[in-house]
């Protein structure tokens, strides 16, 4: 196989990522770990987005929306996002309640 690595053109800001990491007061000094985290983040996003898109297609929708976040439930790997996903459900539900009189699926 040729040595050509897949290179994502997106570059996440290392400084910002370091700040996010250090928001956790338990986290102390970090040495050369940020590039590693960046690559893991890119891979995670790719996997997460792809799986979410599959759900969108399965639901025959043409737009990926928060309604398609089932992969967070179904994949054990994404369970850490459950609380975050709950948050979006409540706002989406509020919107629905405002616009529709009938109750939407929870």
């Amino acid at each position: 196989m040729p040595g050509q690595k897949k290179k994502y053109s997106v570059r996440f800001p290392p400084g910002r990522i370091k700040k996010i990491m250090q928001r956790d007061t338990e986290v102390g000094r970090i040495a050369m770990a940020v590039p590693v985290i960046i690559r893991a983040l890119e891979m995670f996003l790719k996997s997460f987005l792809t799986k979410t898109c599959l759900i969108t297609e399965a639901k025959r929708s043409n737009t990926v929306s928060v309604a398609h976040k089932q992969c967070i439930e179904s994949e054990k790997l994404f369970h850490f996002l459950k609380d975050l996903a709950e948050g979006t459900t409540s706002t989406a539900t509020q919107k629905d309640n405002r616009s529709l009189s009938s109750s939407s699926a929870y």
Partner: protein
Amino acid sequence: MASSSGNDDDLTIPRAAINKMIKETLPNVRVANDARELVVNCCTEFIHLISSEANEICNKSDKKTISPEHVINALESLGFASYITEVKDVLQECKSVALKRRKASSRLENLGIPEEELLRQQQELFAKVGFPEGQRCMTGCGGSEYTMADGDEESSIYV
């Protein structure tokens, strides 16, 4: 880089970077705004997840600084072992870049000739150019001050 808005609580990956990532991963797919927002927050959550696990591993190993190894072990223990190969490649790349930089800077340092020798060479050069022998004194911070008496004029040259 000065951040325009907000305190540390609003710290997220820039929206533009996420949008680019979405475009790259899912070209020709429309993604709603609320979904993009969720993705931004998922990034932050992921970073916290990995950092906190890496931090725990770091503490257990009696070290004070989180190293890339700690992050790799964190990925493994959290179930992201499939990411490790590519992540190790990135680490290798970073290490070789850092090594090159260190080599380059140490090469520059080796060009440094001891100060006495430099002064001697300078005296020679001045002599060649035709400056009369002048007084010289060394300042404490590595520079030298030459005061030349040339007829009526006196000039000081700081080196």
